[in-house]
């Protein structure tokens, strides 16, 4: 595909006949960049970096095309053009923004051009144009993958002319999206350090993964089509002027129904004017400052952190939990790294969010939407208490599974060269870091909900749930080989590990079910609590004794 694109652009030589642009250089730079694009590893939905391979980009386009075909259903089935085209345009804008921020950011932010290309006899205009065209090619390919289903559907339902209008309007919208994203980058780069920027990108990636993994569950419940029928004769006004997708919606409505409103021309001016003005601004103003600005990303240190030592909360907690050096060190280490390592967060947070969202969706389908109605429903379903209690122990498993991965696995040499007699001490630190941090983050709010909705008689059940969660983790650490934290490059977990994990989940499920059945005999659970504490302490001692033979290095 790249060769075709290069050939096509080669035909446009006459457009670039300026003395300060070398067209052959430009083509060469473009060709190289397109090749690199297709080999760039991307982060997939599970947050794992996809191994380098050919045609990654084409596969991505195909995926987007399929997704867009589903979205094009809106245009077929929604009766009002304002709504259907607004929704599709919003989808177009959101998708392109997200891809620009997550995927393409590495290209926009790439400063290696200045070392590799700019040190050669290449004019700054050639370099700038090559970057601009590169961005356009990328965007055009993406936009086509997103738009093609909609264009076909529009042509089929509303006729050829309408489809052409839609295509043109959408391309302007894409330009505007590019401009807004650029503005976002310039703002972020002005006010934050590169680190912050990476963190922001990380957050957006996590957001996308959460939306993709759990979005359909919510959409199914929230969308009720009958509420859309009422807005047949929507007037342009107020907040419509700040939502570009609505502009496309209204303009398409006008195209289809030929009903002009007094404000329609304002939208037309906005959607054509803003991209053109910003494009002119970008090419004329930025071209000179462009090199310096991007070149300075590398060394500039904005928003430097203070010298003050802000004690991490783990350093305060560890004092109360551990006396031994190694357990304590690993407790703090796991605690800090799980809040800071971007790859870990990208992998873990969406899975945790998915687990939480898949908690009873029963409320969403309940007819009586009043608070009292919801409460009555909840109180009648006591099994939900146990569902919530035991769901969180699965979260611990997700965390434990992901905590072994790290971008630079060689950093784990510190463990190997340390003089720890029993690595069991490390296990213990890790177990309680995960337990205290994650169990408590979820357990405190969940306990609050349970106690306030279902009453205080469930307090002992909550404690029993916590103990079972920790004990099941202890059993896991005792039964499978331990992998040092943050010591593996991304790989699939071993088969044995998966089996043990499923067994553990099964165990937790059985205990949860039994717990649900016997819970009304309250003293049984109290006795269970005491037994669980005894077991917990015994298992702690056992874990501490574990030797190096049970560690994967």
């Amino acid at each position, binding site marked *: 595909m790249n060769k075709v694109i290069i050939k096509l652009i080669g035909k446009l030589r006459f457009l670039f006949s300026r003395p300060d642009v070398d067209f052959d250089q430009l083509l060469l730079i473009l060709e190289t960049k397109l090749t690199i694009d297709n080999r760039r590893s991307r982060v997939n939905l599970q947050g794992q970096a996809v191994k380098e391979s050919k045609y990654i980009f084409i596969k991505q386009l195909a995926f987007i095309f399929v997704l867009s075909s589903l979205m094009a259903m809106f245009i077929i089935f929604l009766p009002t053009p304002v709504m259907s085209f607004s929704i599709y345009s919003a989808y177009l804008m959101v998708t392109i923004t997200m891809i620009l921020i997550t995927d393409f950011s590495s290209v926009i932010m790439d400063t290696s051009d200045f070392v590799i290309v700019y040190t050669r006899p290449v004019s700054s205009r050639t370099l700038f144009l090559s970057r601009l065209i590169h961005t356009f090619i990328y965007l055009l390919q993406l936009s086509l993958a997103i738009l093609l289903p909609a264009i076909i559907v529009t042509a089929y339902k509303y006729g050829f002319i309408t489809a052409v209008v839609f295509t043109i309007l959408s391309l302007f919208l894409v330009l505007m999206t590019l401009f807004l994203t650029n503005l976002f980058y310039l703002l972020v780069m002005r006010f934050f350090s590169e680190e912050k920027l990476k963190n922001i990108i990380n957050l957006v990636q996590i957001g996308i993964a959460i939306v993709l993994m759990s979005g359909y569950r919510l959409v199914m419940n929230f969308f009720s089509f009958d509420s859309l029928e009422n807005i047949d004769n929507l007037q342009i006004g107020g907040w419509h002027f700040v939502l570009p997708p609505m502009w496309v919606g209204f303009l398409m409505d006008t195209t289809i129904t030929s009903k002009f409103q007094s404000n329609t021309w304002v939208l037309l001016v906005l959607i054509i004017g803003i991209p053109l003005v910003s494009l002119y601004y970008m090419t004329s103003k930025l071209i000179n400052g462009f090199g310096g600005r991007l070149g300075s990303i590398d060394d500039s240190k904005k928003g430097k952190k203070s010298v003050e030592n802000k004690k991490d909360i783990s350093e305060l907690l560890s004092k109360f939990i551990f006396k031994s050096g190694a357990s304590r060190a690993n407790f703090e280490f796991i605690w800090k*790294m799980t809040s800071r390592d971007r790859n870990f967060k990208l992998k873990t947070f969406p899975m945790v969010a998915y687990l939480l969202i898949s908690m009873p969706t029963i409320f969403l389908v309940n007819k009586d939407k009043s608070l009292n109605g919801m409460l009555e429903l909840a109180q009648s379903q006591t099994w939900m208490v146990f569902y919530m209690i035991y769901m969180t122990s699965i979260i611990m498993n997700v965390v434990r599974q992901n905590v072994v991965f790290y971008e630079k696995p060689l950093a784990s040499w510190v463990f190997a060269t340390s003089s720890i007699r029993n690595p069991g001490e490390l296990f213990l630190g890790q177990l309680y870091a995960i337990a205290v941090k994650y169990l408590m983050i979820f357990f405190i709010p969940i306990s609050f909900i349970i106690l306030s909705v279902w009453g205080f008689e469930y307090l002992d059940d909550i404690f029993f749930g916590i103990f079972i969660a920790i004990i099941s983790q202890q059993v896991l650490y005792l039964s499978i080989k331990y992998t040092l934290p943050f010591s593996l490059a991304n790989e699939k977990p071993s088969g044995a590990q998966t089996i043990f994990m499923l067994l553990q989940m099964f165990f937790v499920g059985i205990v949860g079910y039994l717990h649900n059945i016997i819970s009304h005999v309250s003293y049984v659970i109290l006795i269970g609590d005491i037994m669980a504490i005894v077991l917990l302490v015994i298992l702690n001692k056992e874990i501490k004794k574990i030797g190096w033979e049970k560690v994967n290095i």
Partner: protein
Amino acid sequence: METIIEIRNLHKFYGSHEVLKGIDLEIKSGQIIGYIGPNGAGKSTTIKILTGLLIDYAGEVKINGLEIKDHSLEIKSLIGYVPENAILYDSLSPMEYFRFVGGLHQLDLDKIKSKSQELLRVFGLADNRNERMTSFSKGMKQKVLLISGMLHNPQILFLDEPLSGLDANSVILIKEILNQMRTVGKTIFYSSHIMDVVEKLCDRIILINSGLVIADGTFEELKNAQNSASLEQMFNLLTGNNEHIALAAEFVEIIKE
């Protein structure tokens, strides 16, 4: 001076490939040992064995009279290791990293704090001590690594290309630190490709090639034996194909085309 490291007939295989083919060495304490050799000669493997990272070797390797295979923990608390390429958990700040590493060595927390704070000050990193290391330059990370390798006051120090990324002032400082550590009786195992530094810094130079020791002695001794002016020259004479003049001429010729 007593013998601190003793290696007898050390062999090491990776699969069927023999990396070390019988190394014999005896090293006295209070010396800086230059351990040099071309890429793939077996330097890193030797260091990994001596630091207890690899224990499936054949032969005898003793530190302080203890066989490494059987006493890896005692030995690990005696030694400090600074790997090359400054790989560490850079989401942590230097202070947090030392707290972590010190914890793994079972050191007292207050002691770690005061000690690492002082050491960072000496290295000019006092202001960066609570910053995350993701923004650090290679040289800064290297300094953090050097401190983390010595925090527990080891008897033997294994350094792999310890000066990489450091500026000239830091290089002078580190060299002087190593010098003074030798005088208080520490043993330093120094592995590097920078021959000038090894020539000037080391009391004894060991050159290995394809898993065998091919030269061993002070620089003076080696110089006289091999009849070379510099260590670099000697290195090339013993391990290179000695074609560098012809190769260089060829290179220059091709560029001219």
